[in-house]
């Protein structure tokens, strides 16, 4: 029962976080500079490296 109240409390705080982030999401979606050619590639490359690295770590612990 205590755990349920804790889950409800956590859900409320995460919900508040949603309202906290919303104005920033709106701001950045409207005003963020447009990506130049190669910008997304420059961002996706390290993110792909992270994915590869995590897969490697998973194989290491198996």
């Amino acid at each position, binding site marked *: 029962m*205590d*755990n349920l109240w*804790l*889950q409800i*409390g*956590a*859900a409320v*705080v*995460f*919900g*508040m*976080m*949603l309202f*906290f*982030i*919303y*104005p*920033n*999401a709106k*701001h*950045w*979606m*409207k*005003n*963020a*500079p*447009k*990506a*130049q050619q190669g*910008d*997304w590639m*420059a*961002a996706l490359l*390290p*993110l792909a*490296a*992270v*994915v590869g*690295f*995590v897969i490697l*770590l*998973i194989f*290491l*612990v*198996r």
Partner: protein
Amino acid sequence: MNRFDQSIAQPAGNTLAVNKVIRNTYMLLSATLVFSAVMATVSIATAMPPMTYLVSLIVSMLLGMFVLPRTANSASGIGVIFLITGLMGFGLGAVLSLYLQLPHGPQTIATALGGTGVIFLGLSGYALTSRRDFSFMGGFIFSGMMVMMVAIIANLFLQMPALQLAIAGGVMLLMSGYILFQTSQMMNGGETNYINATYGLYIAIFNIFISLLQLLGIFGDD
């Protein structure tokens, strides 16, 4: 003022000021990570129950939303950031205690810790050396965070392992993107407050560590 309310990155007019923000951020980040680790050790040593994690997370999120933005421009902001990171470390200790009881728990924790360090240093190093402006990712990252938040709320009650896995993977990628975004914000003068920058990077590191711990725990058969 909302801590995410940053201006769009502009070329830094004052290199010295930018360097100072970067130096102060990494110094404070190092100190908070060490403090967090100490608090996690205290939590493990005192065998705190698993619910400590959620309680610490709730209190630290409330502090991060309502207290830190009001104190980030004063010296008391440093005390608040240590309070938040100490609490999060204390909560993390309760989770680590659970992992330590698993057959390969210590190995999983060590791998997740090392992996988090490599990911953070790699992404920060990449953003610092490439000197690219990643502020175009802002909309994608913040809207992605909102989607993740909805999924996390749903899974608090649904407790679906597959959704937990998807959340861990999504959070990991979003936080990795956030490290690129925040580092380039510091470099391009979009973030001038080192306390806010430290908070953002700490949250990213914390989330990457927790997500990696979950992924390694699930796929490592623990």
